[in-house]
């Protein structure tokens, strides 16, 4: 069965696409914060990434230790091909739905 994206999933996927190789939990979260102007829960983002990884839309990998004293590794995420395809699908669908829509007061 195809995985149905939630709104947060969609935001997380877009953040991953924007951040590229620098995407990890809090970074994704802060990117969402910056765009939406609302504070996202890190735990919720982790849960979302967990779901997306299960669905094969993102892949997690462990970074090299950070270049500082006692630097630890981080868990990064990148979009998989399926993830990119899902994002494109979403955009096409949204664009189709918006076609010919005019809202009053607009």
């Amino acid at each position, binding site marked *: 069965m195809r995985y149905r994206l939630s709104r947060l999933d969609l935001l997380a996927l877009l953040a991953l696409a924007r951040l590229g190789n620098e995407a990890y*939990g*809090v970074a994704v979260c802060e990117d969402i914060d910056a765009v939406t102007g609302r504070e996202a829960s*890190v*735990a919720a983002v982790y849960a979302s990434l*967990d779901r997306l*990884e*299960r669905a094969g839309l993102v892949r*997690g990998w462990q970074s090299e230790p950070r270049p500082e004293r006692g630097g630890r590794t981080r868990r990064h995420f990148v979009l998989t091909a399926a993830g990119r395809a899902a994002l494109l699908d979403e955009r096409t669908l949204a664009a189709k739905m918006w076609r010919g829509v005019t809202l009053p007061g607009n």
Partner: protein
Amino acid sequence: MTPPRLARRILAWLAPPDVRPWLLDDLDDAFGRRAVVDIRRARRWYWRQALGGSLTLTAMRFRRRALGAIPANHLEDRMNGFTFLAASAQDARHSWRAFRRQPLYGAAAVLSLALGIGASTAMFSVIDGVLLRPLNLPAPGQLMLVGERLPEIPGAEKFRFFDNPAAFLAWRREASEFSGLAAIQPAGFTMPTGGAPQFLHGAHVSTNFFDVLAVRPALGRLLAGPDEGDTTRPMVITDRLWRTAFDADPGVIGRRIGVPGTEATVVGVLPADFHVEGKELGPMIPGPTDFFDALKFPKREQQVFSDFNYTVLGRLRPGVTEAAALAHLDAIQADLARTAPQKLHLYAELSPVRDYAVHGARQELWLLFGGVLAVLLIVCVNLGGLSITRAADRRRDWAIRAALGAAPGRLARQVLGESVVLGCLGGVLGIACATGALKALLALAPADVPRLAEVHANWHVFAFGVAVSLATGLVTGIIPALRLRRADPHEFLKATAAATTADRGSLRSRQVLIGVQAALSTVLLVVAALLGVSFSRLLAQPTGFDASHAVAADVMLGAYTTENARDALLRQLSGAVGALPGVTAAGFTSQLPLRGEAWIDSIDVPGRVVTAAEQPHVNVRFVSPGYFTAIGIPLVAGRDVSERDRPSGPPPTSAATEPPGIIVLSRATAQMLWPGVQPSDLLGRGLDLEGHRVTVVGIAADTRATLDAPAPAIVYVPYWEDAPGKISIVARSTASGSVLAGALREAIRNVAPLAPIPLVQPLEDLEGTAVATQRYQFTLLVTFASIALLLAAMGVYALVAHSVAKRRKELALRITLGARSSDLWRIILGQSLLPVAVGAIAGLAMALAAGRLLATLLFEVSPTSPAALVPAPAAVLAAAAIACVLSARSGIAAQPWGALRDE
């Protein structure tokens, strides 16, 4: 700059293990960046993340459990079942070695746990047997007591489930919601034995009684329809009577038993597990029964508003609700009330049999159970404190193990393992002791706790004991284990013998534990004090009679069936008892004071018209001349009854030609009938007692029927008016009670050889019996509270001893630097008494909350009474202070150089 510790702990605790390190690192990172800008905002942000994420993380955990973790290289190795078991076995061995090294600690711990577990297991078996287990009958939930409700009659609510035969017959005819309804009435039976005849308690029941209960006989048959008119008096006996009186002889079926004139025929024996007796059969049958025979209603017409002398038991048809049955019964009652001349409303009430039987004992038992559990909790907390001390003493041991690679979690598990082992050892011993403790509890229990026959150890009790043992182990170990778990091996290694002061963390944990003990002890003490005050107020109530130097004997005259025979006997009895050497006065009554209200009749002042709701009622007592002197009830006015009052000549042919009788009123009766009139002015006035004209000849002082209620209105009627079948003879003497008891029994036996004498007791015991319940509650609670106080004091002692020992060097340094011993005392006392004080205040608050639940058990004392609230925390503080001083004295008095030279 570290994130808020608690928030971080919450996150760590909730996050799935494979996500935890990443999530925490990420958040720490982000927190660090935010904290540079604004530390307070950063902290708020972190808290929002922790609280906002908690639900998500929990959900994530559950989802993962369902789906399984993602197989990936970075997941931690998880302990599988095998390695866990192996590690546990190692832990157990380790624990065992630890106890072997400190046998005294182990023994003390196991014994105190055994005490707590034993006591709570025993108390639980009482709760289980009395309150939790259903009646041992098919579909017990369908069994209902059915009662009448007369809301307009004041005081009628005291007589729940006293039913009238007319109502019973109407219910049986019309209430189709019941598959059967049976009426019950108390009965007695005289069993001749080789020596003194024996009195058996039993019940007359309608012949469908056993069908309603759905009981089968163990031997012979149970009652059947034709038994009602059977003059051979078919009787069903209990297994207990069958074994005690007939040596379990199967040939008992068909045997005629009893004294001539009252014989019965044994037709069946009930099964051994038949325990429906006592309050399950309503208020009139208060104790165990030995036999059941067929109930015969009196021949006369059944009136609706009188003769409330039966209890009705019914079985609801399957699927019928209580509410539906009650609605129909109420309708039947309304129809009945319309047929009666009195303009009164009549309703019905229903109660599941077991609820009725246990309703009086429920609160008391839960209170006692709560008390036992509080003691058990204090035992746990005490051991927890000891365990922390031990852990602190073994820090080097831990440090080395941690340095060698033992995970903190593993060490924590060992501490927990140790206490679980302790708990289990304590449990084994405790469950073994529970049987003994149960015997003691049952022996102490007052007779009015229902269903005690059903209390015995069974698998429920065993399961409870096992669960409690494991729980105590966990509770004891959890705090030290948590402390170890969060401890850092570096910390361990830093803590060397060179430290001069006590380890802060362990001190704080132990202070918390001391506070908890102080709080629990305070609660127990407050409850004990409340019960004590209530008990003493009850004992201080005026009984209205003189209990010293007097003995009372209950005499059952059921074997003398005719009124004339009983009258002749009663006439001789007072004389025979009065002639005993040393006896200064003797007399008898149909019911002694403090044995409750009974035989309630309506009374009228001639010419005064009252509504049915205002109809005065009085307790009727049949007495002999001399009774007032013998029991020491003073006469306020007039005179005692006398044999000269006995009507002479042939017995009257009808009520109309009957000459007026005489009557003595209690003061309360006089006040009720003629408020404000001087007692001496009432002599000679007439009254109608149940349609019989009587003349007032005397006014007696009030006596109590129960200690917790004001004296009821009582009237005293000469015994020859009724010749009661059961009397209590009172003999006042100059001799001591025990000498008199034997002579009294002998004198009664000579006059009435067929009359059983079930009880001879000093009058002082009447009061003792009346307060038996309160005494029981008070005794147990005082015991619990004393144990609690002792344990709390021991806890303080151990805390102070340990901390003084640890701080020897610090104290010594302070002395060398010029501190006076008063300064040292301030430090030590503050450290241990502050948590006690905080705990005592918390305990007081808890006691105030608990007091509301207690209110109905108390007599004339409010749960917020300062008499109980002030001494309890004071006692806890005093005990703690004494323990503290005893414990610290030697440490503080020691010369400083000894400690300083130790290095």
